[in-house]
C-alpha cells in the first residue's frame, strides 16, 4: 500500500502534530511546512516556511525575529562609548566589525582622528576576525554537506584565534575593544608571537581544508550548480559580500572606499562567475588567504605611538594616569558618569564585514547618547536572496544554500 500525502497529513493531525503541515494544496499536491525555528541546519533560530512539491522547493519564505532583543533601542539608552558594548552583540561571529563600523561613524560625527597605530590594530584585529568568522562558516558548510571533520578542523583553528582575542581584550566574544577614537587598550606584550602563529598556521591549514573539500566528488556534487543566483538577481536582492562576488561583481568596500588602514594594504578581491554554492565556497577560501596577507602587512608595519586619540575630553585616560593626576581622575569621572556629547548630525558608514556590507547609520541630537543607531546588517539583507537561490531545487540543496549564505541570526534580528 502506497503512502499518499493525504495520509501523512491525517497521521500528523491524529497525532496532534497538525502544526507541522501549515497548508496542504490538494489540486497541486503542494505541502507547506515549517523548517525551524529550531533546526540544526538553519544556523540559529531561522524559520523557513517551505512550499514543497514532494522533495522540490516551490517557494521559501524566511520568517525572522525570534532573536529580536531591540538592540537599536538599547543603544539610545547608552552613552556614546557604552553603545559599543551593545552593537558588538549583534553579529556575534564578526563582533569587531560591528564595533568598527559604529566607531568609525561616531568618529566622523566628532571629527576625531585615530592615530596610525590605532588604525593598524583595528585593521589587523578585524582581519583576524574575518578568518575566525569564515572558519565557522567553513565548519558548518562542511558539516551540512556531510563532512563532519570540517567542523572539527574549523573550530580547532578558530580556538587559536579566539584565544588571541582573549589575550588582547580579555574576552573571547562580545569584546567591546574598539572605541570611537581608537582601541581600548594597547596590544599586550607578546602579541607579535601570537599573530605570527596565526599567520604561519592559516595558509597550511587552508591547504588542508582545500585538500579535504575542493576536489572532493561528494562535495562537488552537493555544491556545483546548486543554489545559483545571477549577478542581476543578486544586485536586485541587495546581496553583498561573498554572495555578490561569487556572481562576478567585484565589490569590496575595503578597496572601494578604504577606511582605517586599508588604504595602505595590498590585497586582492577574489571573484567567481558561477554564483553557485561552490563559487561562494571558493571566494571565501581565497578571502581567508587575502586576510592572512593583510595581517602579515599589519604585523610588519605596525607603527609605534598612541593606540587611541588622547583627547581627555573624549577618551578615558590610561589607568596608570589615575594614580597620579587629579585632572585625569576628573576626566575619568566625567566620562564614566555622563559621557561626552557629540555634535548634532548624521552619518552612514559602511565596512566590509565577512558577510558583506555592514552599515551603521548614526544620528546625534547633540546629547550624550545616540539619538538613533541603525545597523544595516548584511545577514538581514542577504537572507532575501535565499528564496531566489532555492526555488526549484531540492530540500537537500536548500541546506547547502543556507550554509553558503552564512546568516548570523543575532545580526538578522538585532
Amino acid at each position, binding site marked *: 500500500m502506497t503512502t499518499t500525502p493525504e495520509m501523512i497529513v491525517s497521521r500528523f493531525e491524529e497525532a496532534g502534530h497538525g502544526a507541522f503541515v501549515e497548508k496542504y494544496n490538494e489540486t497541486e499536491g503542494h505541502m507547506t511546512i515549517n523548517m525551524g525555528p529550531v533546526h540544526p541546519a538553519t544556523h540559529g533560530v531561522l524559520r523557513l516556511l517551505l512550499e514543497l512539491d514532494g522533495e522540490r522547493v516551490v517557494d521559501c519564505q524566511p520568517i*525572522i525575529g525570534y532573536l529580536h532583543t531591540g538592540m537599536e533601542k538599547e543603544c539610545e539608552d547608552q552613552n556614546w562609548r557604552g553603545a559599543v558594548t551593545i552593537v558588538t552583540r549583534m553579529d556575534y561571529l564578526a563582533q569587531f566589525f560591528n564595533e568598527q563600523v559604529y566607531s568609525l561613524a561616531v568618529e566622523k560625527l566628532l571629527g576625531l582622528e585615530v592615530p596610525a597605530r590605532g588604525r593598524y590594530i583595528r585593521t589587523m584585529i578585524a582581519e583576524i576576525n574575518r578568518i575566525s568568522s569564515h572558519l565557522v562558516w567553513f565548519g558548518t558548510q562542511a558539516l551540512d554537506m556531510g563532512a563532519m571533520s570540517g567542523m572539527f578542523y574549523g573550530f580547532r583553528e578558530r580556538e587559536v584565534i579566539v584565544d588571541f582575542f582573549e589575550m588582547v581584550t580579555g574576552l573571547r566574544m562580545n569584546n567591546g575593544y574598539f572605541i570611537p577614537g581608537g582601541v581600548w587598550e594597547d596590544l599586550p606584550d607578546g602579541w607579535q608571537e601570537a599573530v605570527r602563529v596565526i599567520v604561519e598556521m592559516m595558509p597550511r591549514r587552508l591547504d588542508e581544508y582545500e585538500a579535504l573539500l575542493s576536489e572532493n566528488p561528494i562535495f562537488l556534487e552537493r555544491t556545483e550548480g546548486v543554489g545559483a543566483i545571477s549577478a542581476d538577481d543578486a544586485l536586485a536582492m541587495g546581496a553583498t559580500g561573498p554572495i555578490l562576488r561569487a556572481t562576478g561583481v567585484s565589490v569590496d568596500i575595503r578597496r572601494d572606499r578604504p577606511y582605517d588602514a586599508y588604504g595602505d594594504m595590498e590585497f586582492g578581491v577574489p571573484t567567481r562567475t558561477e554564483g553557485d554554492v561552490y563559487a561562494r565556497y571558493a571566494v571565501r577560501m581565497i578571502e581567508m588567504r587575502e586576510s592572512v596577507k593583510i595581517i602579515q602587512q599589519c604585523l610588519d608595519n605596525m607603527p609605534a605611538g598612541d593606540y587611541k586619540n588622547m583627547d581627555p575630553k573624549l577618551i578615558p585616560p590610561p589607568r596608570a594616569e589615575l594614580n597620579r593626576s587629579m585632572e585625569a581622575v576628573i576626566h575619568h569621572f566625567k566620562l564614566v558618569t555622563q559621557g561626552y556629547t557629540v555634535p548634532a548630525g*548624521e552619518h*552612514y558608514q559602511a565596512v566590509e564585514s565577512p558577510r558583506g556590507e555592514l552599515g551603521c547609520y548614526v*544620528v546625534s541630537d547633540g546629547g550624550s547618547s545616540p539619538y538613533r543607531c541603525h545597523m544595516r546588517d548584511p545577514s538581514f539583507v542577504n537572507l532575501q536572496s535565499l528564496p531566489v537561490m532555492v526555488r526549484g531545487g531540492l530540500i537537500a540543496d536548500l541546506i547547502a544554500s543556507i550554509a553558503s549564505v552564512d546568516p548570523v541570526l543575532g545580526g538578522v534580528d538585532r
Partner: protein
Amino acid sequence: MSEPSWIGGPEWLEMAKGLRNERWQLADLCGLDGRDLGFDHRFEAVIQLVNYETKERRTIHVRAEGEPPSVPSVAEIWPTANFMEREAYDLFGIEFEGHPNLTRILMPDEWEGHPLRKDYGVGKVAVEFIPQPFIQVDAPGQSPGSTESKVQVDALGQAKPNGSEPS
C-alpha cells in the same frame, strides 16, 4: 542637527525609478523618528544608495506624512527594499504604500505599538512578568461550591492563609 533636504513621497517614487535606471542600488532604508530633532514633520525614511560602477554613495531623506505616516514603497523597483520597509513599518509604524506584504518582521504579529518610536520608552512598558490576578481554588477536602473555605493562591501558586489581603 544640520538640516538635510527632504523630499516628499511622490517625488521619491519618481526619483527612485530614475535612479534605478542609472544603476543605483539600494543599500539601506531605515525609519527615523524626528520628534526631538525639531523638524516640521515627525517621521521620515532615510535611504542610502550606492552605485557600484562609480563607487558613489548618497543619502536621501523622505518625509512620511499623514496619519499613519506613509511613504510610497520601492519594493517593486528594488526588491531588496522588501525586508527593510517591513522593518521600518514594524519599528516605527511608517506605512509603505504598495508594499506586497507589509507585516511585522521582527516583533511578534500581535504586538501593539512601534518600539523605536521615541514615545515608546524603554522600561516604561511592561513586557512580561505582569502580575496575574489571584485565583481562588478550593481547599483540599472541601466540597466545590462552598464559599467559606477558599484558599487564596498568589501568582506563584503558593497558598496564602485565609483572610489575608492579597499583596
